[in-house]
């Protein structure tokens, strides 16, 4: 029996419940023992109340004047929501089903109208300023990658020029441009390095022609090193955040909760924001980028790893404990063998994510391609910017494919029928070659990034102040008001971006679903085109899109919304199409067998199967978008990131601390709420 009903001896009458709900929204449902619904309604009502008032005071949203009274017409949908809640409670008490959709619509009206106003949506700019976009678009299609020399003058040479040169048979005149060298690499005469001399390939001091890798390779190295470091740190940490392990240790419960809280808080702060903090410690450069990436990645991996540890089969743990093994032996023989495949899979997934983050961490940290991109944006050098985008897209699509393929292989986890005693690991050629490859990559990346571990030990003098100010953050009312405003704008940006993204993704996802693709050549090409579109768009971080939209619709939250919407579109498109591919063909067959036409099959055979996963993915995406929206301010996309950057720039660390605290709380809350909501839906 639920505790709420146990409080009262007799069942409530419908009228009682109606009165309850009319006084305090949600209380009627609570009184009926529907705890979850009641709490949800109460929280929604409280939030709407706050938002309508906040929107009226700060942005004059929906302001109307009736006689001497100036107020907002958004109170109307709120009252309707209130009425709906009372009616819902009444209907439930008299055993009739209420209509949830009405309540959702009332809430949505308030949320979207507020969102539309606070994020400064000006759709007309997409058209009126289209000529600006055309300029950028032309540059994006024609990236600065090659050049040709005409009469002693170096000129950029794009596709048309290359084609013409090829026709004239003078392709040899087309050479990689300076920008190509910056991004990808160039061959240059450099003084022979110690390694080359040691190998006897050159004399000391003798110049040799070498490939000098560009920013793109720096970025790859950043992502790789950060992944390696974060795996090394996260693996041991994850055991302290695993419930089933810590319960075996005295005082483990306390450690578990502390670890989980720390991991969630650290994870809530985006890599780019971590970079802001880290540069105060180690200064601008690749080191800062690696540390920022590693910190966020440790927290994300730590959570995933520890959940994997919690999901192991408890049987072997019991069996090994029963043999008299101690805790370490239980971990080594019962836990570790079970977690190796999922740990490897998650590490590969994280490598993929870290590579994406590495492309933008330089915005703040000052390393890799991110830093290059910031420079090109500052100079308005869009052909150069475009070349970087294409480079990033190629690298990330490759990484994505490799990581996905590899993960699939690991999780299939086939048994090998080995009959003879295996050789010990140190006698296996494969182990040694992997180890060697790993070492070469590690040393190569380290040298390429010119890292110096000593920087860690010499924090800048302001770092002490940063730590102190973050402990004594500024909670004065005016700062709180500003930060609340910015964080709400950020949340609304994410809401609109997710909505735009999903509305656009729905039709495209049908085109990209393999099981709905017809047999004709055309439909197969459409399938590949849609898939390709999702993959290409997905490979670029929202921050980089924002830089384009800023040029198109101007600096501000609207550009941020558009940038986020593109990413949301690409991610949701992929997830939606996979959801469609995963539907059960049985019901479709059954509906078809009744003689239904194609539309009826979609309505009764397909839609009921895909609506829950679609909603679930959209909520998940909103959660992700909020996290991304906290940083789009760094590229002129508005929201809380801009405010944070300003506070850091002005060395007002105590105010920056407030912002970070708000971000942690909001992102962690949204993470929790979205997980709970999705749990209820699926």
């Amino acid at each position: 029996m639920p505790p709420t009903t146990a409080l009262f001896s007799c069942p409530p009458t419908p009228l009682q419940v109606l009165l309850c709900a009319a006084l305090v929204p949600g209380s009627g449902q609570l009184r009926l023992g529907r705890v979850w619904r009641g709490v949800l309604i109460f929280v929604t009502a409280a939030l709407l109340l706050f938002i309508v008032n906040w929107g009226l005071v700060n942005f004059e949203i929906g302001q109307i004047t009736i006689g001497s009274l100036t107020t907002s017409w958004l109170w109307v949908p709120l009252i309707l929501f209130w009425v709906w809640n009372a009616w819902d409670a009444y209907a439930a008490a008299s055993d009739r089903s209420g209509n949830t959709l009405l309540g959702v619509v009332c809430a949505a009206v308030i949320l979207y109208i507020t969102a539309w106003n606070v994020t400064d949506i000006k759709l007309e700019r997409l058209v009126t300023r289209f000529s600006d976009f055309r300029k950028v678009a032309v540059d994006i299609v024609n990236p600065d990658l090659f050049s040709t020399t005409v009469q002693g003058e170096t000129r950029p040479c794009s596709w048309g020029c290359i084609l013409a040169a090829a026709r004239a048979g003078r392709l040899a005149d087309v050479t990689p441009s300076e920008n190509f060298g910056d991004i990808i690499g160039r061959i240059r005469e450099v003084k022979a390095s110690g390694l080359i001399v040691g190998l006897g390939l050159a004399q000391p001091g003798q110049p040799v022609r070498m490939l000098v890798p560009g920013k793109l390779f720096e970025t790859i190295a950043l992502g790789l090193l950060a992944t390696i470091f974060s795996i090394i740190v996260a693996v041991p940490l994850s055991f302290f955040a695993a419930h089933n392990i810590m319960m075996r240790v005295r005082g483990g419960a306390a450690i578990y909760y502390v670890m989980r809280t720390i991991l969630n808080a650290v994870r809530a702060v985006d890599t780019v924001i971590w970079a802001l903090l880290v540069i105060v410690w180690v200064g601008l450069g690749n080191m800062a980028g690696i540390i920022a990436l590693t910190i966020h990645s440790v927290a994300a991996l730590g959570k995933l790893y520890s959940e994997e540890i919690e999901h192991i089969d408890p049987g072997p743990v019991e069996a090994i404990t029963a043999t008299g093994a101690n805790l370490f032996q239980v971990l080594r023989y019962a836990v570790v063998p079970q977690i190796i495949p999922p740990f490897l899979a998650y590490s590969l997934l994280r490598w993929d994510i870290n590579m994406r983050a590495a492309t933008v961490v330089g915005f703040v940290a000052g390393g890799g391609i991110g830093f290059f991109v910031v420079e090109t944006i500052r100079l308005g050098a869009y052909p150069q910017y475009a070349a970087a985008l294409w480079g990033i897209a190629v690298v990330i699509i490759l990484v994505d494919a490799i990581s996905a393929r590899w993960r699939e292989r690991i999780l299939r986890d086939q048994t090998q029928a080995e009959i003879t005693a295996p050789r010990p690991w140190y006698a296996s050629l494969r182990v040694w070659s992997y180890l060697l490859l790993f070492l070469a990559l590690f040393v190569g990346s380290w040298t390429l990034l010119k890292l110096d571990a000593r920087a860690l030990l010499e924090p800048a003098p302001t770092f002490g102040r940063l730590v102190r100010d973050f402990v004594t953050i500024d909670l004065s009312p005016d700062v709180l008001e500003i930060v609340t405003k910015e964080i709400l704008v950020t949340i609304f940006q994410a809401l609109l971006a997710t909505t735009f993204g999903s509305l656009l993704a729905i039709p495209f996802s049908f085109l990209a679903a393999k099981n709905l693709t017809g047999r004709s050549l055309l439909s197969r090409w459409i399938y590949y085109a849609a898939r390709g579109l999702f993959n290409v768009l997905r490979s670029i971080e929202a921050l980089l899109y924002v830089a384009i939209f800023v040029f198109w619709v101007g600096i501000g939250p609207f550009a941020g919304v558009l940038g986020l919407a593109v990413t949301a579109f690409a991610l949701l498109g992929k997830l939606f199409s996979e959801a469609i591919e995963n539907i059960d063909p049985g019901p479709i067959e059954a509906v078809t067998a009744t003689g239904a036409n194609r539309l009826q099959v979609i309505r009764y055979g397909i839609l009921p199967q895909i609506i829950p996963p679609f909603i679930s993915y959209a909520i998940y995406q909103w959660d992700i978008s909020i996290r991304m929206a906290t940083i789009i301010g760094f590229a002129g996309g508005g929201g809380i990131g801009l405010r944070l950057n300003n506070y850091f720039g002005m060395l007002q660390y105590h105010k920056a601390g407030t912002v970070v605290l708000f971000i942690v709380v909001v992102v962690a809350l949204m993470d929790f709420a979205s997980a709970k909501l999705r749990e209820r839906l699926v």
Partner: protein
Amino acid sequence: MLKVQHLVKIYPNGTQALRDVSFEVADGEFLAIIGLSGSGKSTLLRCINRLIEPTAGKILWDDVDITAASGAEMRRIRRQIGMIFQQFNLVKRSSVMTNVLSGRLGYVGTVASLVGHFSREDRARALANLAQVGLEDKAYVRADALSGGQQQRVGIARALMQNPRLILADEPVASLDPVLAHSILKYLEQLNRERGITVLCSLHFLDLVHRYATRAIALKDGQVVFSGLPHEIDDAQFKAIYGQEAERVSIV
């Protein structure tokens, strides 16, 4: 001699799994524990090697109080008590050999075992125990490549690595075919007769109890409702243990 005295187990959610259970097992006995699902059989067996902490009561083994043993003492006691599980509880991704060797963990040093080192004698012993259960040719196969019956035999070989004086078997044949059930219980019977290992085995089927056990106790709602020789369980006893609706079924 194993003495269980006034054992009580109440789970944190309030479930009373054991209410004042007392019985004795002499060395060399094959004691069957019968009862419906949820009657407390698994809890009872796990209290004996303290995989589950009893709420009250005492368990004396050769006059050593198991319930009072400290962490390190408990591990020394556990290593002399082999355990066999319904779901076999092998580490599926590890080789059969590693699974069997893990039965030795209570005897070997922590550091050596963490790097996966086992002595030559331990390895030879593992192979010998695998031969005993007829699986010497499967030593380097991954455990999940084996059938259920084979996995349970690996479980027995693992328990044998402990040189146990007592074996706790929790529904060892409930996940197996009837034919395999007999083969597994025959191994346990052999160990009981030839090596004098005391066996405590929970079983579902009464005819298995008749066939293998030297004595039986029955649990119902966490209480001992019968204690005696297997053939003493008549129809009235049977109804008392399993309820009025129950009917005798037999297994091949």
